[in-house]
């Protein structure tokens, strides 16, 4: 048995190290290009050992520090608020439909699944959010539309509940006089920390990386999130450098725009904070194993 175990360890480490290298190397290339000089990249190409170092890309971003700082603040705010509310709503919706005894259970599951397959598109959603709820150019615009809860997460959590929350436990609690809502947060939630951490991570990535809501529902630049700004820079370069009509007039603007190295710096600036925050979630992945003790 021990040899069996050891062999498994070897295989696991070998496979994961190989895959990890495949993931890290490109990221290193990204970081190295962001600190290369523009000329080096255009002349000699991307390299792990750039001939000439330069922080000009980060200088460019630094010029915009005022808006960047503010945007970081907004991003952190929407990520925290959005993820918390999202976790609450998702688990509250998922738990009842995970219960095999819930009347209309299949209908509700389908109700959720249907939203994953069909959507009305951007225009009607925009009409509803701006006309009925008037959230254009408010912080809600960055939190609510599309992101707050998605069917995918609901069904994922539901599936987790089905497999990992023994119905007997709930019935026992009920018999002990513990109401459904109390049972939910006293028993079900603690049991589901691993999935909550997963969903929490996914939601925070979603909020952190979202630029679409900002582009759609926000025109006031004070409310731009970090990804809004980064995405704006990206699309601008692509747009300007490819529209043959506009550029005679705008070529001066093009030349001032960031290019190769800044794009890389933008990516680094966008990704780093979430990497830093990641270990925070990780605690719970491992914790899940020991939770059996609660039973």
């Amino acid at each position, binding site marked *: 048995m021990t040899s069996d175990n050891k062999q498994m360890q070897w295989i696991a480490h070998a496979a994961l190290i190989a895959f990890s290298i495949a993931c890290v190397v490109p990221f290193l290339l990204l970081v190295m290009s962001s600190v290369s000089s523009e000329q080096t990249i255009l002349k000699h190409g991307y390299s792990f050992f750039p001939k000439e170092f330069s922080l000009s890309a980060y200088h460019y971003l630094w010029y915009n520090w005022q808006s960047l700082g503010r945007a970081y603040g907004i991003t952190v705010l929407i990520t925290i608020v959005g993820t918390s509310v999202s976790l609450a709503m998702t688990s509250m919706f998922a738990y009842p439909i995970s219960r095999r005894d819930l009347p209309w259970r299949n209908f509700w599951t389908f109700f959720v699944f249907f939203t994953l397959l069909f959507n009305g598109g951007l225009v009607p959603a925009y009409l509803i959010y*701006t*006309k009925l709820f008037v959230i254009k150019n408010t912080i809600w615009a960055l939190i609510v539309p599309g992101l707050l809860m998605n069917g995918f997460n609901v069904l994922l959590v539901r599936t987790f509940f089905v497999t990992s929350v023994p119905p007997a436990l709930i019935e026992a609690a009920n018999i002990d006089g513990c109401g459904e809502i109390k049972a939910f947060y006293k028993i079900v939630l603690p049991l589901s920390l691993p999935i909550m951490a997963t969903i929490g991570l996914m939601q925070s990535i979603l909020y952190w990386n979202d630029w679409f809501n900002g*582009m*759609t529902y926000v025109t006031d630049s004070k409310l731009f999130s970090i990804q809004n700004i980064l995405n704006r820079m990206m699309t601008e370069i692509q747009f300007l450098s490819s529209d*043959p009509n506009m*550029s*005679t*007039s705008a*070529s001066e603007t093009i030349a001032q725009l960031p290019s190769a190295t800044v794009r890389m710096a933008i990516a680094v600036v966008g990704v780093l904070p979430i990497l830093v925050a990641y270990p925070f979630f990780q605690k719970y992945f491992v914790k899940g194993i020991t939770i059996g003790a609660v039973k």
Partner: protein
Amino acid sequence: MKKRTGWVGALLALMLLVSACGGNGDSGKKPGGEAAEGQASQASGQEPYEVVMAFYIFGEVPRDLQLVQDEINKISKAKLNTTVKLLPINIGAWKNQMNLMMTSGEKLDLIVINEYSNDVTKGRLLPINELLERHGQGILEAVGPDYYNATKVKGISYGVPSIRDLAADYGLVVRKDLIDKHAIDVSGVNALEDLEGVFRELKDNEPNLVPITNKTNTSVLGTFSTRDSLGDDFGVLVNNGQDDLKVVNWFATEEYAEQLRTVRKWYEAGYVLKDAVQNQEADVAMVKAGKAASFLGHQKPGYEAQQSRATGMEMMTIKLGPAVAKTSTVTNNMWGVPSGAEKPERSIQFLNLMYTDKDIVNLLDWGIEGKHYAIAEDGLIDYPEGISAQTTGYGLNMGWMFGNQFLSHVWKGDNPDVWKEMDEFNRNAIKSKALGFTWDPTSVKAEVTAVYNVADQYRRGLESGVLDPDKELPAFLNKLESAGINKIIAEKQKQLDEWAQTQ
């Protein structure tokens, strides 16, 4: 079951509510309808009104936008009792945002137009000829009858071009230092084929430099033209529309094949980027980085100075054709009144200021005097002491967009007479016979999508010399035909003939 019908009902009710709000409600918005009672000539007698003016920008919203807006409002309030709210939207979000704002009927009074044909056929714009005659005499005068007529679709105008370069002449933009250093003779160069000699010398003397670059998503030839594209290049008038109104398939012409062979020769000789099709950099950036020596593009007076500033090297131009005015050169930047505008006459009144009032134009173009620019003794302007391009609070630098650029100050480094030259350039430009024809592809939408896909497959490769025209051009033409290009051309010819009869 009961439960279900219950919430279907609720859903329907909510939908109706939304639809009630969402409908654009075009009642009472007949152009010029309210104009009569407004008595525009006595502007001061009008009730106050705020014009929301949307335009696209590159980069960040200027820090001092509000200050500039306040200054503008001081003037427009006094003259028209109108204030303006500037609504800059980043170019990346522009198209989407305009679609959304207009479908939901948000307040918009004045917008920049960069897709005229689409905007007109989709009903995004109000007809404005009558309004222009009543409230926009200054605009009509500044634009001039020729260019004004170019905006008319079936006799109706939906927008006016900003006053800038309204024609285009194509040519090569090349580093002057290299031409001088290697004493390359460019005097005899006046066609695409003649460029080969220039490139050869550049390549021989500067082996590390690519003689000619293209820009992202465009081919080497993508920024060169000898035809009137009639909107989308699918069915064109050859020779810049100087001959007749016969719409032809550009890709099947001998001229096109000849151009492709020329570029193919360049490519094989190493004058073009090997990665031309995937080039991720703007042409200017390539020159600035010292990787390329030149690129093709369309030009205008003051263009050399502009490109020299952009690349940080002295650039010169080699003209490869006359300046030509086509519908596309006129309509690619216009101002119009969106169909949901509440008081279109007030929009036009304000627009009129943008074509006649020097102060307003300078505020929009350069910001506030003393704060964002200073006038030197020679009448040219520059940043004030201690302010630079990076620190200025208003650096939009988009004079070509805001109304009449000829009323604006000239920036240091430009020819002081640049506007006079540009005016002459516009006046003297030869005009395509189809100037003023705006193509409406609605009836052949399916074919147009298919043809765009085929073009995406072949054009950039062929026009950068990466693909061999002898092999791939016939395949391209075959696919175009089965995608329905002939149907598009026939439709275009029909529309063009109808248009010609009304001229």
